């Protein structure tokens, strides 16, 4: 009987990832068909204006440090200080930006750089959760490693 056969497959947990994989494939194949009917709404995504000549190339926001910088947000009324430090560079970064054309490629490595990205997109909590996921991953790995050592 087909029910018996199906439950035979479902009851073995080594088939688990295979069953799930098949489900994902079915949905994605069925979804492929519907892709032409989806239309792209780029107008409401967070916009970026890239100035190719700036030393901060992909990351140049323009604007005044601790002043106004135009930053798009879903709910601007929730973030009155939006863009407040978006244009801020640490003194070191500022010096580097004056000296080289390639500051933009390293900016995330500087204090202010990564925070700048977070604040620019105004999605602070997301970044916190992402970091937490990494942290938990490390914690599990460390625990497993030390557990092996103890045995």
């Amino acid at each position, binding site marked *: 009987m087909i029910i018996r056969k199906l439950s035979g497959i479902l009851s073995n947990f080594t088939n688990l990832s295979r069953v799930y994989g098949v489900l994902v494939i079915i949905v994605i194949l069925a979804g492929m068909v519907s892709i032409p009917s989806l239309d792209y709404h780029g107008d409401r995504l967070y916009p970026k204006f890239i100035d190719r000549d700036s030393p901060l190339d992909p990351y140049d926001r323009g604007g005044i440090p601790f002043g106004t910088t135009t930053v798009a947000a879903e709910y601007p009324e929730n*973030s009155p200080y939006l863009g407040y430090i978006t244009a801020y560079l640490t003194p070191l970064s500022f010096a580097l930006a004056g000296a080289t054309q390639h500051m933009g490629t390293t900016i995330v490595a500087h204090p202010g750089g990564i925070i700048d990205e977070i604040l620019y997109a105004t999605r602070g909590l997301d970044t916190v959760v992402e970091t937490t996921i990494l942290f938990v991953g490390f914690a599990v790995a460390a625990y497993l490693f030390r557990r092996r050592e103890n045995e």
Partner: protein
Amino acid sequence: MFDQNIEGAELFALPFGDIVPFFSVYTATLAAFVVVFILISAFDRPERQLNIVFGGDAYYAKEIKESDTRFSRFMAIACGCATLGAVVTGDVFNFTLFAVLVGITNIAIVASAGNRHVLNAAFQYGIVAMIATVPLFGSAAIILATTGTLSIWTLAGMGAVPLLAKALLILGVMGEGIAPLYIGKAEIIRAQGAPFVLMIHFSSLLLFLRVTEIVLVI
């Protein structure tokens, strides 16, 4: 702003930048349950599993090492907090992130189990949880591309989200442990430490409840 005739009236919303956590009657109920279960896993001591020696009438109680309990307890609380986040968040991408966090902490809770069978099941479940990130984030990406926003508040009642994104979202949460893939979870649950192991099942059920609400609302 948020008054859908699906989950009851909105009670409270926290204006937190672009991510607006909100409580409707529905999510507030779920959040209350999460808090209760976090408290249980934080303060309760684990049970002592009894094993029966087959072929005789002897039985013995397993002892749990204090160090193992500590890690499991920490991960159970983390799992509870992740669940709380997933339940109250008002943003699809944020929800998917919390779902992934729940998946990882679920495996971590049983990482201290000494039973090979349990660890095997946890491994299989881990693989599924890993694959599940593809449909989860894929769905968030499709929602952002087709509607230009991720906020459930804005999306609520618009009906602008394509079916594909909804299907992928459900599938992604299914990968974090929903039927008919429960077999992996059923084996995991043989591990000991009732308050912590309970959290594994609890978190994935709550994720499922929350994703149902999201799919119906957006």
